[in-house]
């Protein structure tokens, strides 16, 4: 039977098994369809009930003197908003005008809340007519605060000047004392605030009339904001902040149960041993299970989304979310969200399977899953932060890229290239996670409780010695280092010290830590032999020759390419300035500092990581050329710039070729060092510029090197390539998988 039909058989059986499980059905169907609507509507109605209850209560205002009481009574009782016929949505000045003109009809009842949907009612609740007030006089001003705090008085009002009049010109000063921690005190104060607003408007109008001035006299400038976003876009932007996180949580919630059940659960029930008896490779078993977990995750997220969407839509919650603005839920974006669910579910199912695969029991698996959820939610939250854009390194940032993509789709930003990046990188990460899951799942100590302790899988001394890391291991380390590198670099850029010596020292430390120490540490821990894994063998003469060919020529070609590329992919001014700033300060120091930070450290660290650890790991299962191309491309992506992607990827491939053909990392280090070193020194007076000019090198006004130089450089690169290809292919002995018991 071929692999696909076998996986097909397995996932269909697992799906049947899972769907017959009542617990899965409850988590997947009952919770979203019954519980969420009930919860949302229930809490809304509770909120509404509470608001209208508070609205109907009578509040107590304390004043310090009897005349103030009388004045306040009058103000409250003549408040136009309290007059019959005033509607909730009527602006204050309109109310005043209508009341003045006697236009508020007696029979026009304010709209009752029970006619409106819960969402509308809740929204309207805060804008309804002011509550009733009971006014009390407290003689002792010192009592006021205590009375408000003990709740017997809701708000204190102190008039520090004579009451306002239409005839006067002064400002009356009213101070409202309230307890901000008490909702009743707040409501009483905001009600009074509204009343005084209307009083002030009315008095202002009368005073202006008296002085025969137009209203525009007191409004020299009127600023108004008009949004050009369509209501769909506004709705999308609101949903885009919430929905990605909901989707992630729902996908995980749906996938957790089957992920545990199909791995640790199967082990606990003793069916796993029976299954392993069948002539099926572990990878196929995991692949079949993975399909089911991803499906259930997607299904559960989709059901949740539909249910929440329906509740929001039918319950009128949309208006609440929009705070009364003009908002339309972008129905057109929904199919896209379902598409985004695929990478989401793929990513999380793979992760969950990997984690659950080495758990022996349900309980154990549950313990492992919690940290994973937290670890996933952090990068997910980063993605919904305002201002995050799906570009540059964020395109391939695990989890974060999916959240930003979901948000973008909601606001109608549709970038097919971005979708491809997200899908490709996510597939890669998920593939690596599934491979790890398969490796863990097949471990003897995991399979049989009596076959040694599970601890032995992760303890260093039980790793089998090998000559290269596993492919999945290498890919996962790349993904982890990529994320860490991005965030550390961002932190360094955010320090505001771009280009200073401290900044460069920081960059160098990050490079040494992530690209040198991390892979070396990982190799040491998994008992991978350092010399073969990092190709530390001394270089053959031919290798040095080829490296010299590349190192002396590629910088010219890179320069020429950059000029050519500028025509169709111009570098944003901001980025150019940043880059200049980064280099500018190094220009003031000795040329050796420049060589150290921009050539020596990168050449060593990056080559150790990419052409050492990552290349030997990928080569093991991918084969020579796919591994060289993948690692070369990854090298390009790691430079965090679409503008340098082509050049750095090609360089990465050439360096990879050097390492594979000459079985030594040193030619690549040399070529990398020369390429970067000559490039940075070529423009410096105290560097190589005089020497190069002496040789006749120069660039035209665009920065393009003179044609003979480009031709010569091309020929030299080609020579280096031919030297590499002259080396006969050697079969690399494949090593059995690590980790393994000894």
């Amino acid at each position, binding site marked *: *039977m071929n692999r696909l039909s*076998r996986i097909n*058989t*397995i996932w269909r*059986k697992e799906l*049947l*098994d899972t769907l*017959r*499980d009542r617990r899965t059905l409850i988590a997947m169907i009952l919770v979203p369809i019954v519980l969420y609507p009930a919860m949302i509507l229930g809490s809304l109605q509770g909120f509404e009930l509470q608001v209208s209850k508070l609205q109907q209560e009578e509040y107590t205002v304390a004043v310090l003197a009897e005349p103030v009481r009388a004045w306040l009574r009058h103000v409250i009782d003549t408040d136009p908003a309290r007059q019959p016929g005033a509607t909730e949505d009527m602006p204050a000045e309109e109310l005043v005008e209508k009341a003045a003109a006697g236009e508020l009809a007696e029979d026009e009842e304010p709209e009752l809340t029970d006619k409106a949907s819960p969402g509308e009612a809740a929204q309207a609740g805060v804008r309804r007519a002011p509550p009733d007030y009971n006014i009390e006089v407290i003689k002792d001003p010192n009592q006021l605060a205590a009375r408000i705090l003990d709740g017997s008085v809701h708000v204190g009002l102190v008039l520090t000047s004579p009451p306002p009049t239409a005839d006067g010109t002064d400002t009356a000063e009213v101070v409202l004392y309230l307890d901000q921690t008490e909702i009743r005190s707040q409501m009483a104060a905001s009600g009074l605030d509204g009343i005084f607003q209307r009083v002030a408007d009315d008095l202002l109008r009368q005073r202006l009339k008296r002085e025969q001035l137009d209203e525009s006299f007191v409004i020299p400038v009127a600023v108004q904001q008009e949004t050009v976003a369509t209501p769909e876009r506004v709705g999308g932007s609101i949903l885009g902040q919430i929905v990605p996180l909901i989707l992630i949580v729902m996908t995980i919630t749906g996938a957790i149960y089957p992920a545990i059940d199909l791995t640790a659960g199967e082990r606990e*029930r*003793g*069916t*796993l*041993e*029976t299954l*392993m*008896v*069948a*002539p*099926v*490779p572990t990878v196929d078993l995991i692949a079949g299970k993975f399909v089911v977990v991803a499906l259930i995750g997607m299904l559960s997220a989709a059901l949740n989304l539909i249910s929440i969407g329906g509740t929001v839509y039918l319950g009128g919650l949309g208006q609440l979310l929009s705070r009364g603005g003009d908002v339309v839920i972008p129905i057109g974006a929904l199919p896209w969200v379902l598409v985004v669910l695929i990478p989401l579910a793929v990513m999380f199912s793979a992760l969950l399977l990997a984690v659950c695969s080495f758990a022996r029991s349900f309980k154990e698996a549950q313990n492992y899953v919690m940290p994973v959820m937290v670890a996933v939610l952090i990068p997910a939250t980063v993605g919904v932060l305002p201002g995050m854009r799906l570009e540059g390194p964020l395109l391939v940032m695990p989890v974060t890229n999916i959240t930003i993509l979901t948000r973008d789709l909601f606001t109608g930003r549709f970038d097919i290239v971005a979708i491809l990046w997200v899908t490709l990188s996510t597939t890669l990460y998920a593939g690596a996670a599934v491979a790890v899951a398969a490796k863990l799942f097949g471990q*003897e*100590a995991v*399979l*049989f409780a*009596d*076959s*040694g*302790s599970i*601890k*032995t899988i992760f*303890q260093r*001394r*039980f790793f089998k010695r090998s000559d290269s890391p596993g492919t999945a291991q290498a890919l996962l380390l790349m993904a982890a280092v990529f994320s860490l590198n991005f965030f550390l670099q961002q932190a360094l850029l955010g320090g505001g010290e771009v280009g200073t010596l401290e900044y460069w020292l920081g960059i160098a430390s990050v490079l040494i830590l992530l690209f040198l120490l991390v892979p070396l540490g990982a190799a040491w821990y998994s008992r991978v032999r350092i010399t073969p894994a990092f190709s530390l063998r001394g270089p053959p003469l031919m290798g040095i020759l080829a490296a010299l060919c590349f190192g002396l020529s590629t910088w010219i070609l890179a320069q020429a390419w950059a000029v050519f590329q500028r025509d169709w992919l111009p570098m944003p001014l901001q980025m150019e300035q940043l880059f200049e700033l980064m280099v500018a300060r190094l220009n003031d120091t000795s040329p050796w500092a420049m060589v150290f930070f921009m050539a020596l450290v990168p050449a060593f660290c990056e080559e150790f990581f990419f052409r050492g650890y990552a290349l030997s790991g990928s080569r093991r299962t991918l084969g020579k050329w796919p591994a060289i191309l993948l690692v070369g491309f990854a090298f390009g992506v790691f430079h965090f710039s679409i503008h340098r992607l082509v050049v750095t990827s090609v360089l990465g491939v050439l360096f990879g070729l050097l390492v594979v053909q000459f079985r030594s990392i040193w030619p690549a280090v040399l070529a990398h060092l020369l390429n970067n070193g000559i490039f940075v020194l070529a423009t410096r007076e105290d560097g190589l510029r005089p020497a190069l000019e002496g040789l006749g090198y120069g660039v035209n006004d665009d920065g393009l090197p003179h044609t003979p130089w480009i031709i010569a450089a091309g020929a030299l690169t080609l020579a280096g390539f031919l030297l590499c290809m002259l080396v006969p292919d050697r079969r690399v002995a494949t090593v059995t998988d690590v980790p393994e*018991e*000894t």
Partner: protein
Amino acid sequence: MIKVTDLTKVFPNPDGTEKTAVDHVSFEVQPGEIYGLLGPNGAGKTTSLRMISGLLKPTTGKVHIDGINVTDQPENVKRQIGYLTANTGLYARLTPHEVLLYFATLYDIQRAAAEQRVRQLADWLGMHEYLNLRCGALSTGQKQRTSIARALIADPPILVLDEPTLGLDVLSNRLILEFIRTQADAGKAVLLSTHALDEIETMCRRIGLIHNGRLIAEDELTNLRTRTGKARLSEIFLDLVGATDSVFAEEVTR
């Protein structure tokens, strides 16, 4: 045919020490033969059977099934073996019919042939009445018969049975033993591991006795009787192991 040579399995402990579960065990099982593997709990029987069936990799030593090394081609060997595991689990939410068809597909059996094979096994083992009930609702005996049918679904030439009658009532017990006998008579090589001494006495011509991971005796039952001068199997054990080993004595005479 099963050929086991110097089979050894060492498990690492987290504290760095090692436990030798199976220690240089060698034996052969011929087609048509029922070979009995006998020993107390923790003697290394199950570990040996798992290595023979390709579930565990031997630390050293070799297992050949019809001349194929298990370590080299585990998938091919698994096709030749019907392995009934000791704590055999069935998918509780599937029916025996579904479980059998699922495994038939994993062994590349076409749908029509699989249905026919399921009917045949259900006839032999008397499974028809509960073929379409969920496995979770079956009795121990019914589950065990389903498991045996599962092991035999691909009609393998070799049967490895780990405690096939554990916890069964007399009727189920007899049915299953008779069934195993007919399978051996049909030319299959059967490796039977059990606690039940009377079963070994009636079923097996040759037996191997495992104790502390070592095969301490391997012979025909009649020869063992002659060698020890004891008639009953339990007495033969005690004699071979040494009556001082009280734990073992308790185990086998229980």
